[in-house]
């Protein structure tokens, strides 16, 4: 039986014809304003931005490198530019509860003015208050009050002293108080002199002293009260003077913020505090005991009147779009910093620092989901803020009782922000499944397409996309040949000749590298040759492993036959994925068959090297055998299948056609042509199904054959449904065109068998029998032999199946 010819070269690759383009180079193309191929994602973004309901935040799905971030940012910025600029936010001192700073909302741009106004106000007060308090008339009044008090004090003591003198007694000052002593001739009497006095006189003096002592005691008890009275009067006087002195400045400030009740309330609190602490504004002449520990007066006293401008939107046009690159808890929610002072950590409202939520408030916040999840408590903090619809700054360390420094409880700030999370699909599905808050807070999925349909219009749009990237990154112009080659590359990257990849990083990298090679060759334009050079160099840089595998095959270490024929042995094809590069590798698959009870042993599975999908493929294969050849009789067969020289995990079902062919070859004892390789999965009816990595697989086998010298009979069998995915290398195409290599598209296992063995598969005849010379006829005959053998050995009496066998 002749094999027939394979697919024509034209079917093996879609060729992007540069002549279809009406431009000479990318310089002739306008920028692409719209975002290409992401209509669904853009609709989702528009919806997410437009809907003003809680929980309608966005999660942008798609693998890294799709340009999600750039696209979303670009879109958000366009949207935000037309939105109102949000208000400024400040933190100010809470004069009643210092540990609970107050948040003030001010119209955009007014925050910085308010901070400056408060600074100016304090400067004014620094002049006005000392001037008022040091004014001569005020000082005279203070002195009057002091003198009045002093006079009362002195008079009281003098009166007592005078009264004492009348009794021959003097008021004497002791080291810690006052005493009353009998005097004679201006001198205090000693005990001897006193003893010589008549008893009556002594008694009188003692009685007088006792009475005076009580009065003295009452007088001394009065002294603190007099002091307090005097201080209160002076304080009230200072208060009045201060109130008058600051009145004008404060009225000016009030006038500026008349439409902001919160600011007016704050200014009233400032006024009260300034009046209470007017002395802080007076110059301090006292020398500190420890000069190095002294805080400058401005910091010490007036810091509490400062305005901590937390969010300043004065320079912003429209709503903010903030991308937080390091989304840890403090960078998102904000933080309260501390300063070390005399070995202690202290803080105040001026050390409150904003987080990304503060800066994005009234606009949009973009965060990479993986980075967010990798930061402890950041995700929880973000969810808490979105749930509560306000930002409450709190320290993680303090909430976990890990730190016990003085801290603050700043007033929460209302939050109105759209959060846009960017991450891969797996994270989205996992979060949706396992985090109940996620579904509630991120209701808008923005799913970025991996690729787009290819057609004449889309190719032209793609060309404009290339032109835009070229201009944005200041590359040399790409001629249309180069553009066409890039588009072909995009189809290959999409693994589909009918589609173009939307993985922008891959495309942008190719453009950059093509530009590099063009510059190296001093070419004013980037040509298809430069693009090809870039592709070749990309592969060259990463294909060390592929080269090594090919070398080992060539040297015969890895056993792959590319000519001759062999029973129960077929060339299968697998793909090795190295992250940024993948390549096809031929693998020898062998099968042995013997008398058994219908079991097909997957040796990979037996040693735990086979994955679940591979096992599934093997079970389908066994089912196919049973369905086709043992409908009415026991399948008296045992088969073992193995990937020879495979020492790692094997997964996927793309080798199931090859494995089935190897088993059937073994059963029928019909040799398989080793110049062919086969890939494809099979279903229970023998239909060949598509697989992934078809291009790499074909090229992998081609490289082995080419290294040994192409014979013209070599080729690869692929599922017919994979033909649309073919984007093969130019050298493969050339070999096919020259008749040196073939690619066969098969739809059924029977077609594959016929190509591999050169023997007809043998359809059932009218009597329901397979022709004896056909493969299936031979298989049926062999199975009948095995059944007979089984009967002969008395095996027919034993029940089939593992469970029944266990019973026996």
């Amino acid at each position, binding site marked *: 039986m002749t094999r027939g010819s394979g697919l024509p070269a034209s079917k093996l690759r879609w060729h992007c014809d540069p002549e279809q383009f009406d431009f000479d180079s990318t310089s002739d193309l306008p920028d692409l304003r719209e975002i290409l191929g992401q209509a669904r994602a853009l609709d989702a973004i528009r919806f997410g931005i437009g809907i003003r309901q809680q929980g309608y935040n966005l999660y942008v799905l798609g693998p890294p490198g799709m340009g999600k971030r750039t696209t979303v940012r670009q879109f958000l910025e366009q949207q935000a530019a037309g939105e109102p600029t949000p208000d400024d936010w400040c933190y100010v001192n809470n004069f009643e509860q210092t540990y609970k700073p107050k948040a003030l909302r001010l119209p955009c741009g007014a925050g910085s003015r308010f901070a400056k106004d408060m600074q100016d106000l304090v400067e004014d007060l620094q002049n006005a208050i000392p001037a008022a308090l040091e004014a001569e008339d005020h000082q005279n009044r203070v002195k009057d009050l*002091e003198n009045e*008090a*002093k006079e009362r*004090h*002195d008079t009281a*003591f003098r009166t007592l*002293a005078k009264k004492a003198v009348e009794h021959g007694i003097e*008021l*004497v*000052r*002791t*080291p*810690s*108080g*006052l*005493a009353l*002593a*009998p005097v004679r001739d*201006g*001198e*205090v*009497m*000693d*005990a001897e002199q*006193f003893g010589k006095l008549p008893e009556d006189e002594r008694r009188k003096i*003692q009685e007088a*002293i006792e009475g005076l*002592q009580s009065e*003295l*005691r009452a007088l*001394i*008890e009065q*002294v603190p009260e*007099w*002091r307090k009275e*005097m201080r209160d009067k002076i304080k009230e006087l200072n208060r009045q003077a201060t109130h008058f002195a600051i009145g004008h400045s404060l009225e000016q400030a009030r006038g500026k913020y008349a439409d902001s009740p919160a600011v007016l309330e704050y200014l009233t609190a400032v006024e009260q505090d300034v009046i209470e602490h007017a002395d802080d504004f007076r110059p301090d*002449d006292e020398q500190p005991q420890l000069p190095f520990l002294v805080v400058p007066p401005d910091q010490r006293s007036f810091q509490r009147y400062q305005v901590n401008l937390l969010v300043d939107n004065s320079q912003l046009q429209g709503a903010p779009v903030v991308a937080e690159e390091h989304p840890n808890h403090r960078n998102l929610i904000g933080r309260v910093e501390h300063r070390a002072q005399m070995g202690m950590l202290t803080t105040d409202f001026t050390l409150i620092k904003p987080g990304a939520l503060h800066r994005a408030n009234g606009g949009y916040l973009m965060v990479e989901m993986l980075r967010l999840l990798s930061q402890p408590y950041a995700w929880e903090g973000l969810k808490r803020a979105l749930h509560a619809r306000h930002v409450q700054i709190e320290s993680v360390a303090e909430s976990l009782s890990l730190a016990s420094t003085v801290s603050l409880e700043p007033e929460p700030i209302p939050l109105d922000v759209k959060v846009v999370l960017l991450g891969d699909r797996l994270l989205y599905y996992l979060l949706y499944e396992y985090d109940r808050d996620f579904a509630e807070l991120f209701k808008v999925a923005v799913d970025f397409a991996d690729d787009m349909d290819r057609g004449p219009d889309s190719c032209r749009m793609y060309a404009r996309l290339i032109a835009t990237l070229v201009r944005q990154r200041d590359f040399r112009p790409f001629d249309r040949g180069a553009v066409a080659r890039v588009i072909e590359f995009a189809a290959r990257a999409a693994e589909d000749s009918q589609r173009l990849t939307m993985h922008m990083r891959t495309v942008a990298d190719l453009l950059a590298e093509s530009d590099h090679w063009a510059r190296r060759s001093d070419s004013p334009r980037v040509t298809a040759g430069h693009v090809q050079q870039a592709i070749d160099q990309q592969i060259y840089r990463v294909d060390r492993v592929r080269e090594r595998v090919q070398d080992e095959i060539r040297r015969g270490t890895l056993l792959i036959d590319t000519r001759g024929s062999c029973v129960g042995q077929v060339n299968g094809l697998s793909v090795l994925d190295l992250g940024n590069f993948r390549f096809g590798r031929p693998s020898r698959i062998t099968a042995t068959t013997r008398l058994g009870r219908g079991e097909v042993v997957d040796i990979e599975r037996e040693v735990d090297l086979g994955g679940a999908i591979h096992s599934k493929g093997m079970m389908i294969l066994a089912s196919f055998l049973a369905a086709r050849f043992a409908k009415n009789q026991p399948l008296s067969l045992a088969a073992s299948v193995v990937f020879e020289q495979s020492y790692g995990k094997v997964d996927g079902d793309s080798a199931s056609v090859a494995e089935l062919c190897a088993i059937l070859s073994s059963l029928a004892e019909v040799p398989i042509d080793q110049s062919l390789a086969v890939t494809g999965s099979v279903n229970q009816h023998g239909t060949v199904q598509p697989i992934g990595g078809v291009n790499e697989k074909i090229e992998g086998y081609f490289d082995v054959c080419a290294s040994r010298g192409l014979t013209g009979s070599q080729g690869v069998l692929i599922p017919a449904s994979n033909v649309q995915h073919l984007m093969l290398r130019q050298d493969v195409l050339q070999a096919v065109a020259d008749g040196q290599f073939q690619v066969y598209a098969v739809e059924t296992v029977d077609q594959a068998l016929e190509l591999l063995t050169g023997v007809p598969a043998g359809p059932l005849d009218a009597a329901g029998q397979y022709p004896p010379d056909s493969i299936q006829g031979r298989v049926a005959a062999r199975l009948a032999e095995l059944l007979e053998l089984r009967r002969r050995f008395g095996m027919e009496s034993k029940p089939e199946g593992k469970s029944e066998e266990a019973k026996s």
Partner: protein
Amino acid sequence: MPERTEPVQRRILVALDASSRRLATLEAAAQWAALLRAELHGLFVEDENLLRLAGLPFAREVAFCSATMRDLDLAAMERILRSQAEAVRNDLVEVAQRVRVRWSFQVARGHVARTSREAARDADLLIIGREAPGPHPLLPRHAPHADQPILVAYHDSPAGRRALEIAAELTPAAEDRVSVVVVADSPTRARTARSTCETWMRQHGLSASSCTDFTASSADDLLQAAGNCQARLLMIGSDNWLLDDQGLDLLLEGLDCPLALVR
């Protein structure tokens, strides 16, 4: 004690007690001693009135800080005075060494003002930096500032003129101020004294306008003058007729600044 190369020509006696104002007085006295190249002699007088009082069997004091009454006894009083003398001496040593002036220290027992004046017989200047024997002041006393003037209570006598001389020496910088008040017991004597004073001041480069129109005829007048100009030091000739024991006590009681008696 630091060595000085210049011969000591003058002696300043500073009489101190244990009150808080002693440090400011001591500091000022040491600075003046350095300026005048004088030896600084510290004096602590153990008040004999206090010791007598403490010896009385019924002696009790009322404490300033608590208004409680407690018994006094002689041994305790002596111990307190010794302790105060030691504290004063330590302060004197510390200040004198820092300012690099010669110093000496003496503890005497007797009437404070009288004993101080007797001890100051061979001193050029007696500075009394102790609190008055009267009641505890109602207002806290502030340490004097250098920009406050030295007030000279001038009367026509050698000691009075000497007070002017020393005040001029203590205020060499132009911005230092001397204020003069004439002490006289009659308008005629006041006119004569003022004229003499202004002449002397002109001759010695001092502004005659420093001589105020105010005439003090009592210790109370002097206190008022010192209060009005917020003097940092009241300087007066030791032979001034206002300085009897009662007058001296009155000044010490009422002054917010140290008192310097010039011999």
